[in-house]
């Protein structure tokens, strides 16, 4: 499977994302610079973390207008899977590919720590290899990861099972205490209605190898590969 890992000025988690899909999962992958305007030949797109455009104006606000994002919109409209990690999630929300917005953490702090996220739905290309309710231990590192949407949007997300992961305790309880940034309903990651675009604030690419202390994140990438392979098999 061929992965595109986008690069914007000041993306800085692009190399980790590429490393996981290419070296850990053995897939074909390359960087796609934000000025390119096509995604021909790619099966999946990853929008990595970082501080694109210095987070100027708002996180992801300027990146969403980069030339490559037009191709991402088309790719997503055609059902192609797009995974936004951290800044990538912010960019997808700014681009309107995901509902809601990410705002400043309620604590005003920038936590860099491992958290537990509970899999709320495994009915997606990004979570199909993860049992529903399973906890993943994944690091976060962000100052603006508080997920916000109005009540009716949040209710819709819940009704459509678009919440993929929620912050939880080690025992799997979704509590205030387990919420590192104030995200409404403890939302750590969501997908769109068509379920082909997803975003999450934690960094699974930093938890995909035993060497880094935890490999739970690998399941998200494996889900994507597995979903793509099943799609190809069905088409054959």
């Amino acid at each position, binding site marked *: 499977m061929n992965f595109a890992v986008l690069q914007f000025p000041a993306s800085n988690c692009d190399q980790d994302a590429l490393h996981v899909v290419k070296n850990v999962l053995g897939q074909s992958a390359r960087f796609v610079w934000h000025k390119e305007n096509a995604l021909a030949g790619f099966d999946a797109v990853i929008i990595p973390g970082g501080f694109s455009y210095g987070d100027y*104006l*708002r996180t992801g*606000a*300027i990146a969403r*207008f980069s030339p490559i994002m037009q191709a991402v919109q088309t790719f997503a409209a055609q059902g192609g899977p797009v995974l936004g990690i951290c800044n990538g999630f912010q960019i997808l*929300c*700014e681009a309107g590919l995901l*509902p*809601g*917005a990410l*705002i*400043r*953490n*309620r*604590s*005003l702090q920038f936590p860099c720590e491992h958290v537990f996220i509970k899999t709320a739905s495994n009915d997606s290309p990004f979570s199909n290899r993860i049992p529903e309710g399973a906890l993943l231990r994944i690091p976060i590192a962000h100052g603006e990861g*508080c997920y*916000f*949407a*109005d009540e009716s949007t949040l209710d819709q997300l819940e009704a459509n099972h678009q919440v993929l992961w929620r912050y939880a305790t080690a025992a799997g309880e979704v509590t205030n205490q387990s919420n590192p940034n*104030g995200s409404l309903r403890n939302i750590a990651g969501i997908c769109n209605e068509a379920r082909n675009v997803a975003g999450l604030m934690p960094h699974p690419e930093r938890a995909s190898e035993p060497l880094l202390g935890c490999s739970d994140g690998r399941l998200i990438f494996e889900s994507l590969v597995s979903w793509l392979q099943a799609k190809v098999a069905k088409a054959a």
Partner: protein
Amino acid sequence: MRSTDMKAKIIVTPKKAVLDPQGKTVANALEQMGYQGIGAVHVGKYLEIELPSGDAETWRKKLDEACHRILSNPVIEDYRVEID
């Protein structure tokens, strides 16, 4: 004085429904510094855009669109445009 020395002043503020921890922190700080009786504080953004040519009404429409598209995020922010 040039007739088109116009400047747009745009104020972007968080919507009332949005958590504003920055605002709360500033309010606490003001209170601690002795400024009693302050209500809520909301921290926003101020942009100045120089408009060397054109007319105010046309610019108002364009900047309104720019505010919707990029200068503010309608999900979490309100804005107002003043041109003088």
